[in-house]
C-alpha cells in the first residue's frame, strides 16, 4: 500500500539525479527488451514475426502508460518540485503584476514601485536558488547542511600512506576512522574483491572497532560514482571517488557523491567531532591535502607507501589488479579462468560449505569447472579431476546450493568460468 508520502512522489531513496532524457532512455531500453524477448519466444513457438509482435504487445498492455508511470516513479520529487517551482513562479509574477497595477492605480511614486518590484524579484531569485538543488543539477555536496566549524584538535588526527591491509596493523587499531586507498573503483563494487577482503576474518576483526571505513578509489574509468563525478566535474582531470564501509553493519557500501576532491572529503569528514581521533590512510597526494589542511602527518613505521599504479600482468590462475588485491588469496581453492585486467571475477556470496564431502573425502580431491552466468547461476558443471564417482556426485550436489555474485566487466555483468578445488575451497576444511 502506498503511503501518503509516496502518493506525493516521495520515496525512501532519492529520485534519479541523471538527466531526464537518460532516465527515460533506460526505461525505454528495459521495456523494449521485454517486448523483444517475448516476441522471440512467441516466434520460436510458431508465430510469424508480425503476429508475435502483436501478441507480445497485447500481453504487455498499454506501453505508453507503463513508460510514463515508470518515469514518474524514477523522477518522483523532481517532477513534483518542478511543478511547485512553476506554480511559485507564476504566483510571484502575478504578485509583481498586481503590485505594479496597484502602484499605478494609487499613483504612488515611481521609486516606491521600483523598490517593491526589486524586493519581489529578489524573493523570486531566492526561491529559485532554494528549489534548484532539489530539482537537480547541483552537486550533492551543496545540498548538505553546513558542517559546523571543526572542534577538532588537529594533532589527534594523523594521516599516513597505506592500504586496507595496513588498516589491520597495530599502529591504527582501535581508531574510529580509517581511510584507505585502492587502485580501482570496480574492486569496491558489491560482490567485488574489496568485499572479499573486507569479509576475510583477519581484516574483519581488525576493522571491527572502526565506526566507518572510507575507501578511496583511484581509477576514474571504473564505477558508477565516477561516472556521476565526471558529469559534475569540469575538465579532463577527474578526482577519485570514495566508498563508505561500515564494519559494524557488515556490507553497507555506498558511494560518497559530490565530493570532488580529497581535500573536501577530508574537511567534510574530519570536521565531524565523532571522527576527530581518526587515522587517515591515504596516498601521497592525500598526504599533501592533509598537510594543507593543517593536520599533522605521520608516515608510521609499519605503513608502506602504495606503489604507483601500473598495468598488472594477466594471471589465469588468479585475479591480479595493480599488484595489491589477489582474490585467490581470499578464496583458496578457487581459480578464476580467463580473467582480464579490469574484470571482477565471479565470487562466492557465502563461504563454501559441503559437510558431506568433508566426511567422505578421506584425503581425496575433486576439481569442478563451471560457468557463473550474468545472473550468478551455476551453469554446465563438469568434473575436471575426479575423486571417485560417489565423491564427485557429493561435490556436484553441493555446487548446486552455492551462490555466486556474477563477474563484471566495467558496469556490465558477464558470464565467467571458475574452477573449484575441494576440499581446499571449503571454509570448514581450513
Amino acid at each position, binding site marked *: 500500500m502506498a503511503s501518503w508520502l*509516496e502518493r506525493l512522489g516521495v520515496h525512501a*531513496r532519492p529520485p534519479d539525479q541523471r538527466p531526464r532524457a537518460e532516465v527515460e532512455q533506460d526505461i525505454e531500453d528495459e521495456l523494449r527488451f521485454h517486448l523483444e524477448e517475448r516476441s522471440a519466444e512467441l516466434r520460436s513457438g510458431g508465430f510469424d514475426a508480425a503476429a508475435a509482435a502483436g501478441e507480445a504487445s497485447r500481453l504487455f498492455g498499454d506501453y505508453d502508460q507503463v513508460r510514463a508511470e515508470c518515469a514518474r516513479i524514477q523522477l518522483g520529487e523532481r517532477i513534483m518540485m518542478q511543478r511547485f517551482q512553476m506554480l511559485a513562479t507564476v504566483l510571484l509574477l502575478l504578485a509583481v503584476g498586481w503590485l505594479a497595477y496597484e502602484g499605478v492605480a494609487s499613483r504612488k511614486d515611481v521609486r516606491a514601485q521600483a523598490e517593491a518590484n526589486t524586493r519581489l524579484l529578489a524573493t523570486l531569485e531566492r526561491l529559485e536558488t532554494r528549489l534548484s538543488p532539489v530539482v537537480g543539477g547541483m552537486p550533492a555536496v551543496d545540498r548538505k547542511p553546513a558542517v559546523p566549524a571543526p572542534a577538532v584538535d588537529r594533532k589527534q588526527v594523523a594521516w599516513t600512506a597505506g592500504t586496507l591491509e595496513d588498516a589491520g596493523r597495530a599502529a591504527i587499531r582501535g581508531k574510529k576512522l580509517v581511510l584507505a586507498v585502492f587502485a580501482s573503483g570496480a574492486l569496491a563494487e558489491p560482490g567485488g574483491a574489496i568485499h572479499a577482503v573486507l569479509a576475510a576474518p583477519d581484516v574483519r576483526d581488525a576493522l571491527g572497532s572502526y565506526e566507518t571505513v572510507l575507501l578511496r578509489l583511484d581509477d576514474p574509468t571504473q564505477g558508477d560514482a565516477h561516472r556521476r563525478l565526471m558529469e559534475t566535474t569540469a575538465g579532463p582531470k577527474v578526482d577519485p571517488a570514495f566508498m563508505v564501509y561500515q564494519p559494524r553493519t557488515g556490507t553497507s557500501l555506498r558511494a560518497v557523491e559530490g565530493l570532488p576532491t580529497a581535500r573536501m572529503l577530508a574537511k567534510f569528514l574530519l570536521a565531524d567531532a565523532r571522527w576527530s581521533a581518526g587515522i587517515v590512510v591515504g596516498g601521497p597526494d592525500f598526504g599533501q591535502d592533509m598537510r594543507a589542511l593543517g593536520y599533522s602527518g605521520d608516515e608510521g613505521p609499519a605503513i608502506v607507501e602504495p606503489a604507483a599504479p601500473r598495468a598488472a600482468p594477466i594471471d589465469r590462475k588468479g585475479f591480479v589488479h595493480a599488484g595489491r588485491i589477489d582474490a585467490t588469496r581470499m578464496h583458496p581453492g578457487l581459480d578464476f579462468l580467463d580473467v582480464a585486467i579490469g574484470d571482477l571475477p565471479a565470487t562466492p556470496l557465502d563461504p563454501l560449505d559441503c559437510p558431506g564431502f568433508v566426511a567422505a573425502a578421506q584425503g581425496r580431491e575433486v576439481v569442478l569447472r563451471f560457468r557463473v552466468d*550474468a545472473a550468478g547461476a551455476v551453469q554446465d558443471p563438469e568434473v575436471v579431476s575426479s575423486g571417485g564417482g560417489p565423491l564427485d556426485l557429493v561435490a556436484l550436489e553441493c555446487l548446486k546450493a552455492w551462490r555466486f555474485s556474477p563477474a563484471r566487466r566495467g558496469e556490465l*555483468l558477464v558470464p565467467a568460468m571458475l574452477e573449484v578445488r575441494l576440499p581446499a575451497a571449503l571454509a570448514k576444511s581450513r
Partner: protein
Amino acid sequence: MAEAAEELPPGTLELLVLKVLQSGPMHGYAIVRTILARAGTELRIEEGTLYPALHRMERRGWIDSEWGLSESNRKAKYYSLTTAGRRELRAQESAWRRVAGAVAQVLGGGRAERA
C-alpha cells in the same frame, strides 16, 4: 471447459516479485516468466504492470538494479533483493499466510460455526 485465469489480487504482485528474486538476480522478463511458470494457468498478469512495480520497489529500497548481459547476450536490467527487501518479503509473506488462512477458515465453515 477450462476456467478463466484470475487477475492478481491488488498488492500481491510485489510479494510475488520479492519471492521470485529470493532465488537470485533476474531481469523483468525473467521475473514475469518465473511467476507465470509457477502459477500455471491460474493467474493472469498484464506484463507491463510489472515495471512500475519494480521501479517503485527500487525506490522503496527493497531491490537494487544494474545493467548486465542477458542469456541472449543482450543488455538487460537485472534486479536483486536488498536486505530491506528480504525483511519486507518475510513480513508480507507472513501477513499473506495469516490472511489466506483466515479466509480459508471462513470459506470452509469455520470452527465456531461447526461447534
